[in-house]
């Protein structure tokens, strides 16, 4: 394993630099072209997590399972941000926990640099944890209220003493506080003395302490006020460039995901419905669920409210304990036909787009995938 350093990785900062300047679509295409010949840093294959439903007090009998994650596959490349969006109960947070080995996968593999981390335990797992870290959603419950900020950010060094020699730790913690934009003099304060945005910065500093390569962000700004969200997003983008981080950015706020992500996956009821570059997903969605999701987002422009076409879905998300047969979205889908109930659509490039060069040519799990411009000219 490489020695942890705070220096940039020259290889991928080139890619991010290219994106920053160029117009959006071209940048995305350029990035996609680059991704194609890069080795993914994380490969997720058919990841499954079923939570058993049991009955009985002494002898527990399984009567079913909540299929929280049911066959999810994707790749993550070095230096990129993969956004995962979906509504509550779609399994996006469970994916985060599986990637962190905080939950044991029911089936499937997660390869980190070729090594399946779902099978690891003990020392080997601990070593991998140094490279994959997490930022949690709720800045109020993710910091231990009885520990000082210095202890919270210094804890990674207690657990992995090889990263920072003992005498060095206080200095490292102060550096980290500075990196995330907090006054290093606050090292002895307690979490409840900070606001939500500041606490999230503390959480980010803890995630950075071990110089990880991948940070999994589970709704990192959804608990924050609008004016503070932008600050935290900017910080995360700055850190990504500075330390060459790869992010998996899980959120339900579509505009923020679009801003920060290079690629986006849309999840529905434990499966990925559609995945592609941000421009492909947002401007050329081919899965009806993505289209409905995008059209439902309130747009902060009152002029748009009269002439905007909204797809208002009927009903609620079905229970993951008893998902519909075939396509899981068919119960709310306006395109559903008999075939959708019988045959499960696979996540692949739809055949009708396979031969043409169009932004609609990305993986979508729908039998009747077709483009529909829902965001308008936005």
């Amino acid at each position, binding site marked *: 394993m490489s020695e942890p350093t705070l220096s940039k990785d020259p290889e991928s900062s080139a890619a991010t630099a290219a994106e920053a300047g160029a117009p959006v679509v071209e940048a995305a295409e350029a990035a996609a072209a680059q991704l194609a010949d890069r080795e993914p840093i994380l490969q997720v294959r058919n990841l499954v997590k079923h939570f058993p439903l049991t009955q009985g007090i002494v002898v527990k009998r399984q009567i079913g399972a909540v299929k929280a994650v049911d066959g999810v596959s994707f790749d993550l490349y070095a230096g990129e941000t993969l956004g995962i969006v979906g509504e509550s109960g779609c399994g996006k947070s469970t994916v985060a926990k599986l990637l962190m080995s905080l939950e044991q996968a029911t089936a499937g593999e997660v390869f980190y640099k070729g090594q399946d981390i779902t099978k690891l335990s003990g020392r080997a797992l601990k070593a991998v944890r140094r490279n994959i870290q997490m930022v949690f959603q709720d800045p109020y419950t993710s910091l*231990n209220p009885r520990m000082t900020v210095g202890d919270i950010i210094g804890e990674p060094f207690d657990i992995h003493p090889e990263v920072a020699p003992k005498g060095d730790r206080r200095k490292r913690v102060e550096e980290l506080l500075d990196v995330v934009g907090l006054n290093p003099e606050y090292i002895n*304060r*307690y979490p409840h003395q900070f*606001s*939500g945005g500041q606490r999230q910065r503390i959480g980010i500093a*803890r995630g950075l302490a071990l110089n990880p390569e991948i940070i999994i962000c589970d709704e990192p700004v959804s608990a924050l006020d609008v004016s503070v969200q932008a600050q935290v997003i900017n910080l995360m983008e700055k850190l990504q460039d500075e330390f060459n981080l790869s992010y998996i950015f899980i959120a339900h706020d579509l505009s923020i995901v679009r801003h920060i992500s290079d690629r986006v996956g849309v999840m529905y009821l434990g499966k990925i419905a559609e995945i592609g570059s941000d421009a492909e997903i947002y401007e050329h969605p081919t899965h009806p669920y993505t289209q409905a999701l995008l059209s439902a987002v309130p747009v902060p422009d009152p002029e748009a409210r009269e002439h905007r076409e909204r797809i208002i879905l009927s009903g609620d998300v079905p229970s993951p304990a008893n998902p519909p047969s075939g396509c899981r979205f068919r119960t709310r889908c306006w395109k559903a036909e008999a075939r959708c109930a019988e045959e499960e659509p696979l996540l692949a490039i739809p055949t009708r787009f396979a031969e043409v060069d169009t932004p609609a040519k990305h993986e979508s799990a729908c039998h009747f995938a077709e483009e529909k411009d829902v965001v308008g000219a936005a």
Partner: protein
Amino acid sequence: MPENTDAVILDGVPAVAPDGAPVPVDKRDKPRSLWNDAWYDLSRKPIFYISALVILFLIVISIWPGLIASQDPLQCNLIDSQNGPSSGHWFGFDQQGCDVYTRTVYGARASVEVGIFSTLGVAVLGAVLGGLSGYFGGWLDSIISRVSDIFFGIPILLGGVVFLSAVKGGSVLTVSTFIILLGWPQLARIARGAVITAKEQDYVLAAKALGAGHGRILLRHIAPNALAPVIVWSTIALGTFISLEATLSFLGVGLKPPAVSWGIDISAAAEQIRNAPHMLLWPAGALSVTVLAFILLGDAVRDALDPKLR
């Protein structure tokens, strides 16, 4: 209470002044742990001072009863039997002709000893077993919970009579052992609940994600956050254990003469309540005040540690 007043108060500390200038340090911005906060709340409650003073006084006289009582509680003269208050003997004499005041003062020691030993025992045993059962769950939890259910089912007085008559001892140690044996399940339940609440918090997940082991998670993350209800319950329990000791001694299975205990004296006085009510008044009064002091202290501590429980 509106949901955002909490945020209101928290949201004030500026990270770095917008222009980068040093932020003037306000006294309220000093490092302030939750324990500091609890102490601050506690220190503003008169009830806390009153009950703490009573308890402090009790502890002092149980260590040095001679400070306020010049006589020997076992030096009695039957001539004085049941004599009422007189100068030099303001509380009067009991059946055996012993000075009631002296005996009440000396009786504090047994109560305090039993209270402290049994509370310590219950707290350690209950917190460890309850904590482990809450943290690990599974079969360990099943076993510990079922065992504690069994102990729960034993009526405490009946159990006391049977157990203490069987061991034939009437010492502070045997009484405390009995209380620990029957008292731990209740604390184990409280500790288990507190640990389960704490272990579901994101900061525990965060520690796991860093690769922390069970020991670190239990000691650094869960124990400090699950401690509050254990402390509160233990404080109140100390008072009830003292009254339990008195009850057992009253029934004749707890401490036995020549030991000096409020329970023994209450028992003796109860037989003579018509002839010499003064014999009952003082030990019973001392017991009530003591138990009340612990319960009030427990209430004050609870309010300070968790304002939401109010």
